[in-house]
């Protein structure tokens, strides 16, 4: 790791101020950023640690409205009793990220700001039509995820919380890469106030995306059988050493079927 200057912020306002020093980057759980810095794939001059900011932590459930603070860890999301009641699919998803030690540190805000094309949370937020609050504005999930490791966040902008309406039915199914545990294909299916929304992670050439074909089929009939015989085009899907685009196109339908069945169970 190259030399870096560490700063610990105690408020969002202080973090925004500290971020103006040099080529600074925000640090939350650090489960991606620190390995990237160790491999010298990232070399910020300064790190602004957000993990100790109290206002960024915690989960609030009021009726069907769920708000998760950006610095809430995957472990906290996976084990929150109120969240498990209204949106069990989101808690389940958080429990599938990495391993227990990673879940103790990694945060939802960090994950979505990084927008890894194989990360789990982007699929949930997109399918749930979540709203991402920052220290400057509110951004709809549809506008937030821009591509591989790209988001709508501007320099110095900090994700503060994520809000969504708990869906009537939802589930996430993930085909894990056996080594990294990242999604080789993950599908989040939600049936809520905006109808059926289906988001796919780990498969798109340009990061997380909604599958209109699956949404159309499931809108007609919210059942795995609605996807029988559906074939997706491998164009715009990722091909790498783990799986070809054709294989991923197949996996999306398989994961979507499993997710619908789980959501209906």
């Amino acid at each position: 790791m190259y030399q870096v200057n560490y700063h610990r912020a105690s408020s969002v306002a202080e973090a925004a101020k500290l971020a103006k020093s040099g080529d600074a980057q925000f640090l939350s759980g650090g489960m991606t950023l620190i390995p990237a810095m160790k491999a010298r794939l990232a070399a910020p001059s300064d790190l602004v640690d957000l993990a100790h900011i109290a206002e960024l932590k915690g989960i609030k459930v009021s009726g069907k409205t769920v708000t998760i603070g950006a610095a809430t860890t995957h472990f906290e999301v996976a084990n929150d009793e109120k969240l498990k009641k209204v949106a069990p699919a989101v808690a389940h998803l958080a429990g599938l990220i990495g391993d227990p030690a990673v879940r103790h540190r990694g945060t939802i805000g960090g994950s979505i700001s990084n927008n890894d094309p194989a990360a789990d949370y982007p699929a949930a937020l997109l399918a749930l039509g979540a709203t991402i609050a920052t220290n400057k504005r509110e951004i709809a999930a549809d506008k937030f995820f821009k591509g591989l490791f790209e988001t709508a966040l501007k320099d110095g902008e900090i994700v503060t919380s994520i809000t969504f309406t708990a869906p009537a039915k939802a589930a996430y199914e993930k085909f894990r890469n056996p080594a990294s545990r990242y999604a080789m294909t993950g599908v989040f299916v939600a049936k809520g106030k905006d109808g059926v929304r289906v988001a796919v992670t780990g498969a798109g050439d340009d990061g997380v995306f909604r599958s209109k074909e699956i949404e159309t089929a499931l809108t007609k009939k919210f059942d795995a059988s609605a996807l029988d015989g559906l074939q997706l085009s491998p164009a715009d899907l990722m091909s790498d050493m783990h799986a070809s685009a054709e294989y991923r196109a197949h996996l999306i339908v398989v994961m979507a079927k499993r997710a619908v069945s789980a959501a209906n169970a």
Partner: protein
Amino acid sequence: MSEVSLVVNGRRVGGTVEDRTLLVHFLREHVGLTGTHVGCDTSQCGACVVHVDGKAVKSCTMLAAQASGSTVVTIEGLADGAELHPVQAAFKEHHGLQCGFCTPGMIMTATDMIRRHPEGLDEATVREELEGNICRCTGYHNIVKAILAASKTMARSKGKAASKAKKAA
């Protein structure tokens, strides 16, 4: 440079370190606790697992500066004097180690796992919870056996302590 101050195994330790110093290097090189190992150095193998504020974390993927102000427990902090911690004793009893390199991380992960599952553990849960710890010798069978045994022993001694306290009251 950062001034860091932590409580490690009940002892306050501190010093001035480069901001890029990883917690594992701070523990090994500054505090002299070499029980915590660096295996893969890419947060996959879990040889570096320690408890920070009561939670198992990979100390190769955390800066010492991030941990400043925290309470840390390493493998050296588990035993009570000459008496092994029940998880350590179970690893010995059930031959849960061969070369021993992964063992400190395995044991720190196991104690965290047992604490988070007061209802008890089954084999499938233990195997799933060990996802972030790699062992290249044992094939895991005896590690799983040891953790299941330790979980039972600890539940029993907790039950005994509780009934003792009840009687005393």
